[in-house]
């Protein structure tokens, strides 16, 4: 049901662009104003969210230690999983952000006859996530050819790599295939695995369909309903150089694609997609694990905290302590016996 809601929502958005930019001829709105606004919401929203997190204090040093601590010199420390230096922390974060280290560890539990449980390695989610994020990144970088003139060598290079196999004309991008496959996997997994379906919300399905919609509209535009690339570039260049123009006859598929991208950008800061920014701020991963070696300072103070002092303790138990010859700070009062 939640998946269907999300699917309808994405269809409705596409239809909105179809009618708006197509039938109603609002090319300017869908080609310039909305994308501009969306980028603004994305940039400002993203920054606001990160600043908002940054304003929350980090009172304690609470990293999850995933390996041997720094200890005696002859005990081999796991310098990346349990880092005690900044270099180690940086390596840990790099592995996490670039290679999804924690997800790589994923296991699957199975119950068997009798009372037996087994755990097996389960790398599909890791693989799917990696394929998704890296193809997404490549596609975004590839798109930079629309916003740059001359096109930087690196972007041309990425494009050349991506169309290595030179299938069809225009050449087929490998990332397009990987991307659609990965997003589809991530969606199917949510629907098919009962536990994942149980925890999934509308906002888990919506971005998947939205991204899938963007991918399909892009692919459709490139391989089937061909749009005028020259005009698209003209529009894109106009957007980034603030000399806004809307060339004639780009084709409505482009506006649908552009609108869905705009929705994604605007939706981004409001949603779980902010994990992109949040992963860098996660205290269980980005802190030094040597918290007995280096003091971590809590920026706020505990208020109205009362401690039970030794004096209070001895006052209550002095007699019993003296009875057992336990040392006391003050002798028993005279005549107390």
């Amino acid at each position: 049901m939640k998946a269907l809601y999300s699917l309808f929502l994405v269809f409705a958005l596409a239809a909105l662009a179809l009618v708006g930019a197509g039938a109603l001829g609002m090319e300017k709105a869908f080609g310039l104003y909305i994308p501009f606004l969306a980028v603004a919401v994305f940039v400002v929203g993203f920054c606001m969210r990160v600043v908002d997190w940054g304003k929350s204090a980090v009172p304690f040093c609470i990293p999850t230690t995933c390996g041997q601590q720094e200890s005696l010199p002859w005990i081999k420390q796991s310098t990346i999983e349990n880092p005690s230096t900044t270099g180690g922390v940086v390596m840990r974060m790099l592995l996490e952000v670039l290679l999804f280290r924690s997800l790589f560890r994923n296991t699957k539990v199975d119950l068997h006859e009798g009372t037996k449980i087994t755990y097996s390695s389960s790398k599909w989610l890791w693989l799917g996530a990696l394929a998704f994020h890296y193809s997404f990144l490549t596609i975004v970088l590839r798109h930079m050819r629309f916003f740059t003139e001359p096109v930087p060598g690196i972007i041309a290079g990425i494009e050349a790599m991506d169309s290595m196999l030179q299938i069809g004309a225009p050449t087929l991008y490998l990332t397009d295939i990987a991307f659609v496959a990965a997003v589809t996997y991530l969606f199917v997994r949510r629907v098919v695995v009962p536990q994942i379906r149980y925890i999934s919300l509308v906002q888990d399905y919506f971005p998947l369909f939205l991204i899938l919609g963007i991918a399909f509209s892009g692919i459709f535009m490139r391989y089937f309903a061909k749009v005028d690339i020259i005009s698209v570039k003209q529009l894109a260049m106009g957007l980034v150089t603030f000399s806004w123009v809307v060339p004639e006859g780009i084709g409505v598929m482009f506006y649908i694609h552009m609108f869905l991208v705009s929705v994604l950008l605007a939706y981004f800061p409001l949603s779980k997609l902010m994990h992109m920014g949040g992963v860098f701020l996660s205290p269980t991963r980005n802190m030094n694990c040597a918290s007995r070696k280096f003091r971590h300072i809590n920026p706020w103070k505990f208020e109205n905290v009362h401690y039970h002092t030794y004096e209070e303790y001895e006052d209550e138990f002095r007699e019993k302590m003296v009875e057992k010859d336990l040392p006391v700070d003050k002798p028993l009062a005279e005549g107390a016996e």
Partner: protein
Amino acid sequence: MSDLPRPEALFANINHTPPKADWMDVPVDIKPGRYCYAANPDSVNYVGLPHARKWNPLDDDWKLPENWQEIIFKGLHERLQKYRSFKIFMDICVRCGACADKCHFFIGSGDPKNMPVLRAELLRSVYRGEFTTFGKILGRFAGGRKLTPEVLKEWWYYFFQCSECRRCSVFCPYGIDTAEVTIIGRELLNLVGLNIDWIATPVANCYRTGNHLGIQPHAFFDMLDFFCDDIEDITGIRPEPSFNKKGADILFITPSGDVFADPGTYTCMGYLMLFEYLKREYGLDVTWSTYASEGGNFGFFTSHETMKRLNSKMYMEADRLGVKWILGGECGHMWRVVHQYMDTLNGPEFQNSRMEVPSNPITGTVFKNAASTKMVHIAEFTADLIKHGKLNLNKKRNANIHLTWHDSCNPARGMGLLDEPRFVAKSVVEKFTEMPEGTIREQTFCCGGGAGLNAGENDELRMMGGLPRANAVKYVHEKYGVNMLGCVCAIDRAVLPNSMQYWVPEVDVCGLHELVANALVFPGEKERETDLRGEDLPGLEDE
């Protein structure tokens, strides 16, 4: 454990497939055997925590304060500012499900609200529904819900079905730590007086007497004296521990669980013997404190503030006695607190300037990794002694033991104490076998009773939670003949024996220093006939 079904029946009932209905539509059903009793109001009052009252989780009316919602909202708002961990963890979960089958309570119970992601969603949904713009407008469509008494009951039930072991956080791509969420969730519950007794009463006891069972100083002395009698019977050597001794080199603090409950008591005898040995051989002066006689910090399961109030005693006592540094016994969450919180909580205020960077006067080793807290784990200390050949050990005395090692969650995932205890264990036993990968080291399973859940009344929950650990033990028991499960945590020593008896009755539980003491050869000791448990030493009949 009389009400419990047989293990096979309990196991057969585990169903990992969630129900059809949306989880928000499944009302909380508080089942006896899976919850701990409500806190005794006297205990709550003793430490001045709010809204102490008599209430029963099975009643409809929990006698909440009139403005309970306001209290929770205010508390939640405050904590979002005070803890970045909490705020980030509320915002960035993508519900990928990597954590879902990592929780021992989920594996053993099949209750979907024990999936870490959903346990956190219980709170996250209210955060979204009441604190975010989207959630306020779109409500359930945005995954938000209102804070109702039903929701609060659900929080209480499931936040006290989490042992804060952090296993889920190891697998989360963003390091979301459900323990953090549970800690804050419990703080919020604490604000409206919804504590459980197995936490509140130990807290009050620790505060007053220094240890969680409320043992007063004279009785604490008697218990250790009683162990000394036993040690004398077994070895012919009588330890003479010192108490509250000013000017000692080292203050020793251990979880008091080891002082009064088997098999922790044998570990405690182990400490006594080790210190006696070091005193006789090397003149090391270690003292025990009756005032700071608890390493375990039950405040950690209540609120950060209560944790601080209990933790401060360690430094206050070290200061009063003028010791150089503190040595800590085998305990789980005590070490998470010591390693990750202590220095921040009480370091500058309470730690005296006379304390030194810990160094082992016998070997000369400087514990640089504890330079700031000045507190060393006894496994680090003993490993250092053994490595330098300072202990005379006879492994043969543990020849009847085939050991496997349980990494206690908090030292493993909040510290990284993995190889020190293994080194010590392998130095004192002949047969050692690891449990399968995926169940040890940072992926270790909780005993099922951590974070204050080791009560008698929730035995079903503990047996369910203990299943993954027990299952791995069963594997090495059947395949290799393992008969002893070693650990460095007093809660483990309290919980695992029951869990082993239930799932793998042939396996026993011990602490690390019980094994050390069995192997330790005192100069001039009489020939030992039994181990610390009074059981005949292996092979003795042949000699």
